[in-house]
C-alpha cells in the first residue's frame, strides 16, 4: 500500500500540472485543487494508513 500511496501522491501532481494545457484560469484552478486533494489523499489517507498498520504502539512496544 505504501507504493500505492506514493503513486497517488504523484498522480495528484500530474493532474495539477496538466491544468496548464487548459485555456481558462477557472478550469485550471479547479483541476489544480483536484490534484492537491488527490495528493493529500495519497499521503495522509493511503501512505500514513499503511505506516500505522504496523505502528510501534500497536505491536506492544508502545509502552515503557
Amino acid at each position, binding site marked *: 500500500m505504501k507504493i500505492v500511496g506514493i503513486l497517488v*501522491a*504523484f498522480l495528484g501532481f500530474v493532474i495539477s500540472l496538466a491544468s496548464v494545457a487548459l485555456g481558462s*484560469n477557472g478550469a485550471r484552478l479547479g483541476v489544480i485543487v483536484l490534484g*492537491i486533494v488527490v495528493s493529500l489523499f495519497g*499521503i495522509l489517507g493511503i*501512505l500514513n494508513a499503511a*505506516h500505522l498498520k504496523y*505502528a510501534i*504502539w500497536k505491536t506492544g512496544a*508502545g509502552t515503557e
Partner: protein
Amino acid sequence: MNAGVVRLGPLTPGLLRFGLLLGGLLCASSCCFAQAPAVPPAAASSAATVTPSAPASKPITDADLANVPVPSADAKAKGDRDGSLTGNAGDVTVSDAKKGLTVGDLVNQVGQNKIALNIVWTLITGYLVMFMQLGFALLETGLARAKNANHTMMMNLVVYGVGMFAYWLCGFAIQMGGVGAVANLGGTAPLSAEFVVNLFGKPFGLFGQHGFFLMHKGTYDVGVMVLFLFQMVFMDTGATIPTGAAMERWKFSSFVVTSFLFAAFTYPLFANWAWGGGWLANLGANFGMGKGYVDFAGSGVVHAVGGLSALAIAMILGPRIGKFTRDGRPQAILAHDMVIVITGCLILAFGWFGFNPGSTLGASGSGNLRIGSIAVNTMLASAAGLLAAMIYMWLVYGKPDVSMTGNGFLAGLVAITAPCAFVNPISAVVIGMIAGVLVCLSVAFVERNLQIDDPVGAISVHGACGIWGVISVGLFADGTSNYAGAWNGVNGSVTGLFYGDATQLVAQLLGVATLLGVVFVLSFLFGTLVDAIMGQRAPARSELEGLDLPEMGSLAYPEFELKSGN
C-alpha cells in the same frame, strides 16, 4: 574604463543630462539615511528639465574634477577628529594616474558603490540566517528529553557541515546553475546553463548545470560566491527542519545520509524551479499565470520543503516509544528545558530579519528600499502569530501554552516569508494571525488524527504554515511593489486575488501541488531507500536509554543524569 563609460564620453546634450543625472544620483545616495523625505521621482525629473528661460547648466568634465580640492597630507597627518577630511575625491579609484580623476572613474565608483552595498547587505543578512542554526538547535534540544540533548544538538551542528558540503558539491549548481546574471550582485553571469525540456509546447527548466564545486564553468566569481553563501544558509535552514520532527529516535548515521540527499537533490530541485529560472517561475511568462510562482524568501522553497521532508521522515520512523498508548491515544512527553526553547524562538525571529529583507539580494536600486517594509511585515506577522496562538490555546485549553505560543510566533514568521515583499502591514497581520491559529489546529490534527509523532511541531509550523504562506501571496499581494518593473520576466507588480489578479493564485496553488506531489514523494523515496539500506530508526534499547550514550558516547548533563537517575 569600461564600455559603459566610453559611451558617455563625447560632449553632447546626452552628457548634460548625464551630469544632471549623476548629480541626482549622488544627492539621492546622500539622502538614504536622512530622516527628511527624499524628493519624489516625479519632482526630481521635473527639476531636471531645462526650461528655455533657465541658465544652461554646465556639464561636468574631467577638467572640473581635476580642480576638486583634496585635503593635504599635512592636514591629514594631524589626525581627523571630526571626520571632515576622511573620504573625499582622493579616495576615488583612478584608472589612469597620468590623466587623474575622470568622469569615467566617477561613474565606475558609483556603480561599484551600488554593488558593494548590495554585496555587503546580502552577506550580512546571510550571516544572520546562519545564526538561525543556533535558534533551531536550542529550540529542538529544549523540547527533547535530557537523555537525548547531546544527540539533538549534534544533529543541529552536523546538518550544517553535511548540508554545506553536499550543496557545494552539486546542490548549488542544480539550484542556481541556470539562473543567469543577478543584476543586484553585478555578476553571476557564469550561472547560465539550465537543463530544459519541452512540455505543452513551452520550455520547462528542470535543473541548473553550472557551478559544481564553485569552480565549474567560470563560477569562481565574486557575485557567485555571495549568492552561494546566501543560498547555502537558506538550504541549511530547510535541512534542519526534519531533525526536529525525527528527534529522539533517528539513527545518527542515517540522519547524516538523509541530510546529504536533501541538500544535494531534494531542496535544490524545487529551489531551481522557484528561484533558479525553472518552470514554476516561468508559469507567468509561458502560461499567463500571474507573475509565475512567487515565493519571495521561501515559505515554500525553504519551509514547506523542510516541513514535508519532516513529514516523510516522521512517517518512516514512526512515533517514539511511549508516545501513543495501545489504543492510539497520544501521551505528553515533556520537554526538559523550556527556557532554551523560548531563547531559540527569539534567536530565530532575530535571524528572520536576515531571511526576509535579505532576499532582495541588495539594498540599492531595483525597488530594494522596500526592505524596511519587508522587515516591518516580518515582525508584525510574528507578533500576530504569537498572539493568535496564545489566545487560541488560552480559550480552548485554559492556559496560554508556552510551547504553542512559541510555535505561533514561528508560524507567523514562516507564513509571511513568501508574501513579505508584496503585502501591506494589515495583510501581514492577517496572514500571521491565520498562521497562529492554523499551527494550533495542525499540531492537534497531526498528533490525534494522523497519529504522527512530531516532537517540535515542525510539520505544522513549517509544512502547513509554509503552504499557507505560499497561498497567501496569491490572495494578499497588493500590486504596489516595483522590483525593476517586473517579476519572473513578467512586467508589472505581483498582485493577488483580493487586489484583482486571480491568475496569481492559480500559479501559487500549482506550486503547492508540486510541493505535495514531487517534494514529498522524493523525500519519502530517499528516506525509504536509506531505511532499506541502513535502517532509519535507532534500536529500541538505545531509545529507551536515551540516544546520548549509545549514539554519541557522552551525556549532555552527566551530573543531572546521576541525580535524577534517568
